[in-house]
């Protein structure tokens, strides 16, 4: 016990990093620590990207094929059926422009939502900021988005759609989509640790969200009384903004602003909830 007494007086190794472990109440993110672990985020992302298409015959081509297949299906069913007002954009292109960001968003939520439970072996054996796990899953999906964006670019060229200054909004939209996916995914991943029901609910949630996001149907095709309601979904505004950006159509600033606010709110709540649950991960998982 005597050896412990001088802890009151001075720090023995002033030049060394000091790690203090004690019961904490903090529910905010430690950004300095996250910065310290930035390389781990890179490696987790790199691992997810490397492993995802291992032992698949087509490899990374799946990132391209997923939205293409869906575009094919929806063009077949909706393309002729109803004459949607797509602002003069051919339906296949219209659908693809919605499906590429949507596929990213859906995969990102699903991957990050299941990421914590899938990393049991890490969580129970080694320390690092847990938030990196869902964050890495999102980042790995961004790589896929990059690939499928090539297809989209090719399709735009094929239909002779010239780029406009509206394209400058694209980076912001990708950031917004990623942040929203991260917010939702991180929260779900923490919830998943405690309630494994999340894993089963997730596909339905994503399916439902898909239909509520006007991915394949323009929002103006909906009955007016629904439109206000559907705009409560931030993804509706975001998907429409992607189209505006790609096709040079006017932006709907109000819905985009609303989506941004919702995203920030989701992000704040989700990191708080994640940090609150994080302490018990190792004991529960």
């Amino acid at each position, binding site marked *: *016990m005597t*050896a*412990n007494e*001088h*802890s009151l007086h001075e*720090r*023995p*190794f002033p030049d*060394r*990093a*000091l*790690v*203090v*472990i*004690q*019961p*904490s109440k903090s529910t905010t993110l430690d950004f300095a620590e996250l910065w310290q672990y930035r*390389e*781990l985020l*890179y*490696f987790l992302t*790199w*691992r997810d990207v*490397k*492993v995802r298409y*291992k*032992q698949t015959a087509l490899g990374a081509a799946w990132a391209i094929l997923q939205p293409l297949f869906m575009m094919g299906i929806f063009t077949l069913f909706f393309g002729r059926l109803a004459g949607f007002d797509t602002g003069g954009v051919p339906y296949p292109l219209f659908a693809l422009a919605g499906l590429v960001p949507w596929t990213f968003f859906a995969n990102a939520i699903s991957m990050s939502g299941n990421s914590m439970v899938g990393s049991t*072996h*890490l*969580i*129970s*054996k*080694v*320390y*690092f900021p847990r938030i990196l796990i869902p964050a890495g899953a999102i980042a790995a999906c961004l790589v896929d988005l990059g690939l499928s964006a090539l297809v989209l670019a090719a399709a735009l060229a094929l239909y002779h759609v010239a780029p406009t200054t509206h394209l400058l909004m694209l980076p912001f939209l990708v950031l917004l989509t990623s942040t929203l996916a991260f917010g939702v995914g991180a929260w779900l991943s923490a919830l998943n*640790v*405690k*309630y*494994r*029901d999340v894993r089963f609910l997730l596909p339905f949630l994503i399916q439902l969200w898909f239909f509520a996001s006007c991915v394949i149907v323009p929002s103006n095709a909906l009955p007016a009384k629904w439109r206000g309601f559907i705009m409560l979904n931030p993804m509706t505004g975001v998907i429409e903004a992607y189209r505006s950006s790609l096709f040079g159509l006017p932006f709907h600033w109000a819905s985009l602003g609303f989506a941004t606010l919702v995203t920030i709110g989701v992000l704040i709540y989700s990191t708080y909830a994640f940090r609150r649950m994080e*302490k*018990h991960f*190792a*004991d*529960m*998982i």
Partner: protein
Amino acid sequence: MPPSVRVQNLGKQYTIGGTDSAYSTLRDALVEVTKAPLSRFKRNGASAKAEKIFWALRDITFDVEQGEILGVIGRNGAGKSTLLKVLSRITEPTTGRVELYGRVGSLLEVGTGFHPELTGRENIRLNGAILGMRRDEIEKKFDEIVAFAEIEKFLDTPVKRYSSGMYVRLAFAVAAHLESEILIVDEVLAVGDTQFQKKCLGKMGDVARDGRTVLVVSHNLGVVGALCTKAIYLADGMLRAEGPPDEIINCYLSETLENKVHDLERLRFSGMGKQVRFLDLSMANTENNVDYGEPLEFVLTIQSDADLQALTIGSTIFNMTGTSIGSLITREEFSIAAGEQLVLRLRVSNLPLAPGSYYCGFSIGSGGRLAVRSDLDALIGAPTFQVLPISTNDEDDPLINWHRGWGNIVFNETCLTVEKPHLDHANK
């Protein structure tokens, strides 16, 4: 020398059977809320919940100085793993405080985060990052890691195709090259072949000589004795003893012996001891300390529910790493009547067991020595005894410094002769 690890009043509480211990389903949570909406608030009160609270660690205080290798020993469930988990920041303590001065590398499992689909090369980078190495640090040490693991040829093979030995070697190699001031290790030495284990032990010794601090949890008392400079003994989540490894190991072994009657049930093989069983296993040697060369004298108390003839006693002695050193089956046979209790004395002489700690396994068998003997009762783990490096014979001096790496048997009757080569042979 100031401490580089300081643990003060550390406690960790778990709630057994509560919602914290196992993952629950959403339905359970909903049912609970609808059934008793107020229970959430009541939970804080000191109600019947108290019995479900379990302290895995309680009021643990100790320091580890720089350059020390601290061994943590204790039985299963004594809190060793929980202590390492708290020190590695995997789980938060409920009370107390820990100060760690320097970078902490923890190795609670060999190959944490290894991905079977990735190659050896890729896994070195990934695992290094997970353990907290910087990228330039990994690249700098890359060749050293590969050489240490001896996997040069398989560097670009997915690790799922590795043999378990290769896998473990690679995993330990990465961890061993982690440049942290404090290294926390759990039981990793239980895996891998003996040669590699030795290499790992050497590496850990080097780490400490570099002025870094090592904390190691081990069931292998031999490793703790050979490697550590200090040991702590945990029992029921509390710090029972702290001091030089040999003293602490002795304390641990003697306490393990104390509650022997209670323990026999735990040591018994399942399904054994139905007709006839050991009631007590002890030794006539004082405090289970045996001087080198002194005969071992076991006192076995057995009881039977049936009339049995032609019984024999079998015994195996194990060293502390769990390796059996040797066995016997008694030549003498005995009988027992239903309801009878017998005390048997078994003497084993001329056993050149090297100084160290050992434990025994005993069985009662029927069917005679040569016929097919079948066990009626069998248990492993008691009694535990120590061979002390004291000998009546002055010539046995290497005993004093007997190294664990030399094994458990002292070859006594040896003979060395010197022969000079023939001269005509040398001239050719």
